[in-house]
């Protein structure tokens, strides 16, 4: 026993190889014992164990377990197969339809989002466009669309708002030193003032009392803007000043009551 405990690593490794040969049937117990005579007595027990492990019979599971477990496993497997078969049978159709539907939804959502985004961006950009900008014509189209469904009173109010918008445009063009575009804004202002006046006249013929508050509101708004514009006169070059004066004159005519429907 002590001899085996004190065996060198090299010997131990050789012994392990011999045991391996014994376990795999490539060597006999007697051959191993002959190879390591100095350990014969103690080695015999170890060899017996190793050989016993190799020759040990398999333990069978209990028959009841074998049968019942098989039934349970097969049932699960059949259920799994049903699922797998369903997936395999409808593979293409189910998956593709789902994918296609999902794809359509995503595409629709994407397109809708893009359209809404572009629409919002377009509307915002157009509403802020100034004369000379590419989107300015769209801004005028939007204004005309609003007038289509407006009543006479609403028409007067809208025209007044548009006239106010023209004055704002003139102010912005002045700030941006886009003097060449100012005449277009002034033309628009004169047009809006004329149409607002005409609309007020139309309303006044049917109900003069209803137009007075609208007219007064328009007067006050244009008056304020005229004062601002007048102050900005010094900012524009000389050749542009007549245009500003033209706008101020139109505003003055309206503000001073020349178009007063009352």
């Amino acid at each position, binding site marked *: 026993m002590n001899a085996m405990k004190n065996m060198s690593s090299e010997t131990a490794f050789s012994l392990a190889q011999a045991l*391996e040969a014994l376990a795999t049937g490539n060597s006999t117990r007697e051959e191993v014992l002959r190879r390591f005579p100095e350990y014969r007595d103690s080695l015999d027990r170890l060899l017996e164990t190793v050989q016993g492990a190799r020759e040990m019979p*398999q*333990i069978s599971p209990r028959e009841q377990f074998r049968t019942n477990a098989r039934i349970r*496993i097969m049932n699960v497997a059949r259920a799994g197969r049903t699922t797998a078969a369903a997936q395999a049978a409808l593979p293409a159709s189910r998956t593709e339809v789902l994918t296609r539907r999902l794809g359509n939804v995503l595409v629709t959502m994407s397109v809708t989002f893009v359209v809404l985004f572009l629409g919002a961006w377009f509307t915002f950009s157009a509403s802020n466009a100034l004369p000379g900008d590419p989107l300015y014509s769209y801004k005028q189209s939007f204004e005309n669309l609003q007038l289509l469904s407006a009543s006479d009173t609403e028409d007067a109010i809208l025209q007044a708002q548009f006239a106010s918008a023209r004055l704002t445009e003139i102010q912005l063009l002045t700030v941006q030193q886009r003097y060449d575009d100012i005449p277009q804004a002034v033309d628009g202002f004169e047009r809006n003032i004329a149409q607002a006046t005409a609309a007020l006249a139309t309303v006044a013929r049917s109900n003069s009392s209803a137009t007075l508050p609208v007219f007064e509101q328009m007067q006050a708004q244009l008056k304020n803007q005229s004062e601002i514009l007048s102050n900005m006169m010094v900012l524009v070059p000389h050749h542009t000043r007549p245009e500003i004066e033209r706008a101020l004159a139109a505003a003055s005519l309206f503000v001073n009551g020349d178009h007063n429907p009352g």
Partner: protein
Amino acid sequence: MATSQDEAPDLEVVERAIQGDVEAFGQLYDHYLTPIFNFILFQVSSVEEAEDLTEIVFLKAFENLPAFRTKKVMENFRAWIYRIARNLVIDHYRTKKPTVPLDPDFPIASNEPPLGSDLQIKQEYERTMEMIQTLDEPFQQVLIMRFVQDMSYREIADVLEIKENYVRVLQFRGIQKIRTLMGI
């Protein structure tokens, strides 16, 4: 004594099982039930636990068959299912330690040649099993797969997901530990 590679089911059976052929999976179950059961029994020493774990091994195997195919290890179904059993036993030990000893009336597989009387066989079995069960997990599993299940180093390496040389090292150390346990 254990299932040899020559007796392993055809790859065609494995392939059919992967395709969802329940009967093919039944063949695999019939073939691997006893060795897997033994592999587990050596490590848990309770028949009931070994049965429960064995059943779970096959359920997991069926569940993971598609993954097995994608791993392209068709030629080594045995190593794959042993790996499932091995991992299951490890998980089992993480939560519970076996306390029930081997059933003394446990049946010996009738298709194996007996070494002697049933009593002698059982004594030998218990002695070897006790010896192996005292080892730590990697040594225990290597010795069971190598000497009891008659698996190749390559297969054991696949099961344990280690290199073949390391399997040899574990086997060598496992035998040394047994020698120490035997006091020789």
